[in-house]
Every structure is written in C-alpha cells, then in structure tokens.
C-alpha cells in the first residue's frame, strides 16, 4: 500500500500572517513571504502531522495530496 504524500495548502484569503505555522512546523516546510504569509517552500519535507492546520487560528491551512512529489 502506498501512502499518499500530503502537503499544506494555504488559503491566502483567510490568512492573517500570524506566523504560527512557520514558527512551529517541525520540518520547516514554510518560509515567510515579504508580507509575513507562509510560502510552502519544502513540501516534500512534510510529514503530515497536521500541526499547522490545527494551530492555524484562521482555518487557512489544510493538508492536500502532493501531486508533484509522488
């Protein structure tokens, strides 16, 4: 059974650039853009722990299948 590879997807319309996902991601998947919002710069490093999603106060992060990195 092959496990699906997941990665975070950010809904920029809801994001308020609090920086929590960037600061607390255990694998440094995100880097901050100039406006402080997260860019998903290391999608392949994601271990799908879901912490960015759970900690995002704005419901702006979900995990979705990483289509490229399969």
């Amino acid at each position: 059974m092959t496990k699906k590879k997941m990665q975070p997807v950010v809904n920029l319309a809801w994001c308020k650039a609090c920086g929590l996902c960037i600061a607390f991601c255990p694998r440094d998947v995100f880097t901050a853009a100039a406006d402080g919002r997260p860019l998903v710069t290391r999608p392949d490093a994601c271990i799908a722990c879901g912490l960015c999603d759970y900690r995002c106060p704005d419901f702006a992060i979900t995990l979705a299948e990483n289509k490229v990195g399969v």
Partner: protein
Amino acid sequence: MANDLRLEEYLREREFPTMWCAGCGHGVTVKGTIRAIAKMGWDKDDVLAVAGIGCSARAPAYCDFNSIQTTHGRAIAFATGMKMHRPNLHTVLLLGDGDCIAIGGNHFIHGAKRNIDLTVVVMNNSIYGMTGGQISPTTPHMCNSSTTPFGNFEEQINLCDIAIAAGATYVARTTAYHVNQMAALIEGGLRNKGFSVIEVVEPCPTGFGRKNEFKTPVAMYEWLRDAAISVDKARDLSPQELKNKIVTGVLHQSSRPEFITEYAKMSKKAQERAKSTGASLELMPEEMGKFPGYSEVRLSGSGGQGLVLAGIMLSEATIKQGKNAAHLQSIGPEARGGTSRSEVIISDGEIINPKITAPHVLLAMTQEAADKYCSGVKPEGIILLDSTFVKEVPTAAAKTYQYPVTEFARDTLGNPLVANVLALGILARLTGKLSVNALEDVVRKRVPQRVRELNIKALWAGYEIGKDLVQTDA
C-alpha cells in the same frame, strides 16, 4: 489523523475570514472543539453551541452547529434552559474568561453544583479582549493590562479549582499551543455526562501580548509551550515552583447524579403523587370541551390584587390535574398600584413557548387592564371584568361577563383581598377548564392558615357565581 477530518463541513464558510486578530487563540480553540465533536461522530444538527459576549462569543458563528449568542455572562443560564427543553442536544459552551468567571461566575458555580450535562470550553486569554484589554479575574499577578498599567496587584483566579469545588465532574486544562491535547481533553468533556469544564489558556496578542512584552503572536505561543507542565509532574512541585506555570491535563474526574436525569425522575414522582392524591378529579361533564387541549389565560389588574399568586395557584391546580402549565408574571415598577399581569398556559401537550399570544381567557380587574387587553382576546374566548373597577366595557369579540368581584369580596365575604380567589372560582365555572377541587387543594396549601377558610369559601362562592352567570346567559 490529520486528513480524516473534513473540517470545511463544520464551518460556515461565508462568515470567514474571522473577525479575530492575527494569532488570536480563539480560532485554535474552535478548531480543537470541532475536532473533538467530529471524533464523537455526532450529527452537526444534534449539537448546540452557545456563547455569551466578547471576542470569544463569535466562536459559534463560525461553526455549522445549532448556535446561539446570548447575553454577557448568562450563557450557562441560557444553555441550562435549552438543555432542559432538548436534553438530547449535545450542548457545548464557548466562553471567554470574563464571560465565564467574572460576570458569569455565579452561573458557572451553579452549573457545576447541578452537574448539568453541559461542556464548557473556557477560552481564557487572561483579559477582556473585546472591550480593550482590561483585567479579568484570570489576569496573572503583576501582568499589565489597560486598567493596570503598573501591573495587576491581585492574584489570579483559578477557575478549574472553583469548578471542582462547586461539583463539576470533569475538569481539565490545556493551552492553545497544545492542540492535540486540547482536542483530546474537550472530547473527554463531551463524553462526560455531567458538567465539564475545559480551560484553554490562550493568547490575546492584541489586548494582553502587546502590554506584556510579547512582541509577536509566536512569542505568546512559546510562552504557553514553556509554561505548561503536566498534572503528573506538577504533583512533585511546591506552590512556589508552580508559580507562573500552567498545569495541564485532566485535573479532576468524578461521578455523581446529573441534573436533567434527576429532574426527570422528580417530575415523574410528582405526577404520580398528583394522581394518587386524587388531585386529578374529573371535570363535570357539561364543563368539558371548552378550549380543549390548549388555552392561554391572562389575569390582569394592579399590584396588590393578588394576581401573581392567582396565576401560580391556577398553574399548580392545572399540574395537579395531570396537564402542563407555564406561568409568567409581570409586575409594573410600583409594588402596589402599578399594573400587574399574570399569564398561564394550560396544555395537554408539551408547552414550547411560555409566552402567550392571544388569550382564550381574560380577567381584568382594573379599567386600564380592560382597555389594554380586551381586544386581544380570541373571538371564541371569555372575558371576566371586575365591574367594581371596570365601568366602561371595551368592545371585544369575545364573550364578556361582568361581576363586581372586589365589591363582593369586600362586602359579602368581609375581605377585599380574597377577590383573586373569588375570581378563580368564577373562571373555573365559566371556562370549565379546571376542577375546583384541584384549586381547593392548592389554595389550602398556598394561603396562610388565618385566611385559609375564608379563601376556600371565596373559591366556592365564585364557583356558584359562575353558575349564575352562565345561567343568566343561557
């Protein structure tokens, strides 16, 4: 697992983005609550989310459950009423610390005391967020706020300890940093059949963080991460060592009778008692049939005429007959002489709303009350006017009877104060709704010894007067 949960199904997406500041912990706690509810596998429509007032109070608006925002501090009181009426609704409260333990402190204590099956998630951000960062009872010692610029010299309240002391059966604490623990602890509260409190210590970056040298929201979450200590580890530490720590985990769990279950038992017992004492005496056959099933009664006049008591006695007599009753009273600002109104619903079935719309029966004991209420009575209804005071009979579609109730009470019975019971006797006959025997039982119980016999005499005199009125009418 992160991906099992389809969070968007639980959200009212049209309400987003949220009104909360960047990094505000309220969103994190809402998410933890949704995760816990999802884990329970409950249908969204079987969940009720209740809030009070504050930034926190927006929480239910973002979730697609049944939801209600109530008044500041009163969410537990509202939720108690709703839960009593719909015991099957899983009822979750999302309360700010100010809402819960400052203005709402007494409701909190009594909710815990009753052990009513509610799950209270306290979004404790150490501050009154919405109104501009004033101290709350939960503000830590010597922290700054907009009202304590030199530091809060008061000690902070421990709301979990209060919940435990008052009798809550599940009490836990976590922080907005510890998201997985949060979801698990809230789930524990949902599983507990009784009063559950989950305190989530949260950041308010705007109202608290900026005044307390937290430069960013991230710094606040680091504080929560570092200050938290599990309840197991905390056991070995002295109070001194625990200062500035946040003790997390399940702090208390116990089992004792739950309020709604106990209430149902007592209600059954009361109904059986009413039957066995013969309180549910048969109505006379010719009296059956008026307003079957459901009727609304308004007793109106002025303060001091005993209408509130009359409403209570009418309700109790109704219940004694095995029916349901709801009673609302409204007294004008003046204790005596102001307008007074007492409203009773008599129903064979469940009463959904205690407020009456158009009464079937009206008693008016002042001109003012008659002028105000006669026209609102249902056309097939009955009006009884105390002609001692009502000199001009307002036009009304309903059948209107007049009798000098107060005058008869004063001159023939010797005490104007029994006019209320006299009127009940008349109404019992006019409406055929009530057994006088049931009323007699209630009067016997309700009025003081020295006027008891006089009141019973008045009740039966009223019943006879009612007979005459009906006969004259025929």
